[in-house]
């Protein structure tokens, strides 16, 4: 049983971890440029594919599925919101594995603090990092690609994003526990990325297939993307999206509790197996 030093100390640890993560990013400034630009570049093939298939920037069949005929803002919003998801997957889910690479995991595990508190620090850092990248992407998309994003829409969109991320970070914390147990998860993280691409409307409306539509209902990202696109593209008010908000809150509660318990269980299992230090 780990000693606990109270809430104040936990907060200190969270901020120490945050500071450490920021120092590591600043050591690789090229990464910030990369993540600020490349997710938008990944959207270009969808734009060219759209032009090749429908000859312009709008499609009526697409409007029937999404409510908006213009597919460019659809994929741009998908790219930006998914930046949060994938940064969480790599930055939180894979973070303990990174500590193994750096040779510092054992120090974290033997320190008199709960590793979940350390993970909370990493989560906070990842949220800030992703927000910086998404802000940059949003500026590029607004100035150069004609995405209409007004200040009035930013606040409700951020509420949806926070609701999405609370649950998702719960999942990522559970995934971090998974990395303690099975070690090399690089490939699994990639698979998860593709699963999100396939079963949530990041790049296409999942309603196009009954299978993807059915499976996407258990992915919180689906609800968040539908709500965010509703606010930005269809001028919906967040009040009118209360059902989506309620579903996200429920999913947050479930994922947070399940994530915490899963991590505790996997950490204990790894310690019992004596494989923490194994590579």
């Amino acid at each position: 049983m780990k000693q606990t030093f109270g809430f104040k100390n936990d907060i200190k640890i969270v901020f120490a971890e945050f500071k450490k993560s920021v120092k590591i990013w600043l050591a690789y400034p090229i990464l910030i440029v990369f993540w600020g630009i490349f997710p938008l570049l990944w959207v270009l093939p969808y734009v060219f594919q759209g032009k090749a298939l429908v000859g312009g920037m709008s499609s009526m069949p697409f409007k029937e599925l999404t409510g908006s005929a213009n597919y460019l803002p659809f994929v741009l919003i998908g790219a930006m919101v998914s930046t949060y998801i994938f940064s969480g997957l790599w930055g939180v889910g894979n973070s303990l594995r990174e500590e193994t690479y750096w040779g510092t995991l054992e120090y974290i595990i033997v320190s008199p603090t709960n590793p979940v508190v350390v993970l909370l620090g990493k989560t906070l850092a990842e949220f800030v990092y992703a927000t910086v990248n998404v802000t940059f992407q949003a500026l590029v998309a607004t100035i150069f690609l004609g995405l209409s994003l007004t200040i009035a829409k930013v606040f409700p969109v951020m509420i949806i994003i926070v609701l999405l991320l609370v649950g998702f970070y719960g999942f990522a914390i559970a995934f971090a526990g998974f990395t303690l147990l099975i070690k090399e998860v690089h490939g699994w993280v990639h698979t998860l990325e593709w699963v999100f691409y396939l079963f949530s409307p990041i790049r296409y409306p999942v309603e196009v297939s009954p299978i993807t539509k059915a499976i996407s209902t258990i992915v919180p990202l689906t609800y968040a993307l539908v709500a965010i696109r509703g606010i930005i593209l269809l001028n919906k008010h967040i009040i009118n999206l209360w059902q989506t908000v309620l579903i996200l809150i429920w999913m947050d509660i479930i994922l947070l509790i399940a994530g915490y318990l899963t991590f505790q269980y996997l950490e204990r299992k790894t310690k019992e197996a004596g494989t923490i230090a194994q590579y």
Partner: protein
Amino acid sequence: MDQIIKNAKHYLRAVWAENIKEWKIELTYKPDFIRGLIDPLVYAIPYLLYGIALVGGRTSKTLQGYVGTGDLITFVTLGYVFIGFLNMALWAMGFSLRKEQYWGTLESVFAAPVPRWVFALGMAAHSTLHQGLMIFLQLVVINLIFKLTINPAGILPALLVVAVMLIALYGFGMMVASLTLILKQGWLVSEALASIMMTITPIAYPIAVLPLFMQKASLILPTTYGIMTTRHFLIGETMPFSVATSFFRLIVLGIVWVVFGLIVFEIIDRRTRRTGTISHY
């Protein structure tokens, strides 16, 4: 002459040994191996569903006007299936030396009594076989789901085009592999190159929809000729150049990229040995 044949046999044995070693390592991690086979499928399907969502079916009149075939599913599938060879060059070949560093075996491999390019050829042999297996599975599964329509008579010439394209990609893979020796964490270079090349190669769209500067840039990529000509044989895609021109340019690009890849490989290899950084992590 005898010496040349003896050397060739010796090198081929080393190439085969490298190939077998890679397979053995991969098959040790069976769940990961299976996952790796499923990944390309999950990767390709969103592009197909996106196309269906835009058109409201699988046939696009606009695409028909551009390339002579309106079947977006077969068009896009063939593009994404064969671009897998680019990923092979960038990631599988490109990161093979880095992997040896992780495992701590790079020095032993480089101390073997064969030229270093022989090691690179071994990596290429394994990567091609692995990618070939993935492509076969991708085609079978996507065909089961969507029913692809191809001209069977075009399969052999299409494979020939792929073979010529592969030569150029081997040169590219060798260059990326050697770059990882000096850059160490070279994933960013691979990711950036992959993103740019996948955008300007006409994978899921005809070359005509690209902005002019991208159209020009795409003409120096072997993947442009490889994918367009493969689709030409399999589904009758119309191209802005003849088949003979495409083969000629692919061969020229193959020679240029292989020679360039070998030169870069040689320079970096010599540099890392001189500076004593080959074992740096």
